[in-house]
């Protein structure tokens, strides 16, 4: 969604028309980011309701608060990935760069989070991975780590903020 938000508009040649309307480029990026937040939230609520229903039907012993905490962090993580994709889309204007760039960064950070702790000397570096803030606190067991959620949201705002001047300055591909 983040990749399509801007680069998709350029590919479909609707971006030119949008930018000829009386709205700033920054507003376009920020409103697209707003749409990503709404989308991720809807997915998070759906995940929570679905998991809750599954627990009720299957009779699994799992804390509802833990599921809610995991859902909140899922939303925050989704917003971060969406923001990353949006930023790459804003800077490059190429949907493939945004999509594969986000997937690549996601994979690298997952493996970093999963395997760096194997080596004691490198273990601390795993904290640089966004997965650390998504799953590292084990939200299903320990509940919501507010700090982790704040870091994910902060990182999201940071990458979107960094992308604004890039989108402001560059020419449209189409």
């Amino acid at each position, binding site marked *: 969604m983040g990749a399509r938000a801007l680069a998709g508009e350029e590919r479909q040649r*609707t971006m*030119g028309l949008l930018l000829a309307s009386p709205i700033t480029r920054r507003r376009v990026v920020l409103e697209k980011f707003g749409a990503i937040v709404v989308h991720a939230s809807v997915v998070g609520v759906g995940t929570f309701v679905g998991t809750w229903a599954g627990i009720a039907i299957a009779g699994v012993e799992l804390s509802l608060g833990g599921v809610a905490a995991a859902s909140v962090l899922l939303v925050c993580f989704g917003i971060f990935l969406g923001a990353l994709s949006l930023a790459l889309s804003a800077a490059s204007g190429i949907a493939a760069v945004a999509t594969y760039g986000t997937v690549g960064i996601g994979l690298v950070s997952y493996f970093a989070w999963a395997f760096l702790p194997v080596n004691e000397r490198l273990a601390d570096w795993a904290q640089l991975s966004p997965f650390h803030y998504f799953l590292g606190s084990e939200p299903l067991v320990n509940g919501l780590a507010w700090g982790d959620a704040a870091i994910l949201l902060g990182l999201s705002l940071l990458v979107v903020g960094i992308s604004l001047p890039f989108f402001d300055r560059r020419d449209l591909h189409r």
Partner: protein
Amino acid sequence: MHAAIEVKDLEFSYGDIKAVDGVSVEVAKGEILGFLGPNGAGKSTTIKMLTGQLRPDAGSISVLGMTMPEQTVDIQARIGVCFEEKNVYENMSGRENLDFFARLYGIKHKDFDPFLRNVGLIDRADDRVSTYSKGMRQRLMMTRAMINDPEILFLDEPTDGLDPVSARAVRAVIKSEAERGAAVILTTHDMNEADQLSDRVAFINEGRIAALDTPENLKLKHGQRSVRIRSRSGGGVEEQVIALDDAGAGDQIRRAVDVEGLMTIHTEEATLENIFIELTGRGLDA
């Protein structure tokens, strides 16, 4: 009193390629200015700068007394654009597209029916745009360009590829907008369209304006007016071309028509394309 548009020494490059190289032009309110030139001449790039999509490398742009890029958004609120590409949202209906863009202009709950009726789209207004023909999309684009009652209309190849009926509808809309007082910048490589619609035409070639005047003046300055007379003669057909600017042209014409077997008489004048080729050394379809 400001001109609707004042452009001075505009320049823009794509990398090492200079697309616009020192364009200066003024357009008055209610005037239709035709931007004539072949593909790649710099027409669309100039329009993109005038509508705030590209920032010029050099030069100044004043639109309705406001300057770009400082007041781009204020300018955009008072102009309408219709691009060559039929870039509307395909998954929305025609009416939803208009409503979406109207909201970007801060316009809510506007009745689009008169606009849609005017361009013959009222019966298909609630159908998805993906089901529209090219002509219908273009008419929707024209309608979209007018939702804010613009003081300036930028139209990039507005009738390109349209069927004659759609093209006529679009031209009628352009004329009525100019009569309403809107300045219209019309980019096209269709010389007939420019001739029919434009108060003045600017020939643009390799990023520069090669000539800027009314179509009539350009024809008078650069063209040769003549009469072509064909008549039957001795079992064949004789053809005479008499230049009207030549001394004694009247006598020559009288003699030429005072024969038995006169077949046709045609007045001829230079076309804008002929003049463009004369001035730039290249054709409009290049």
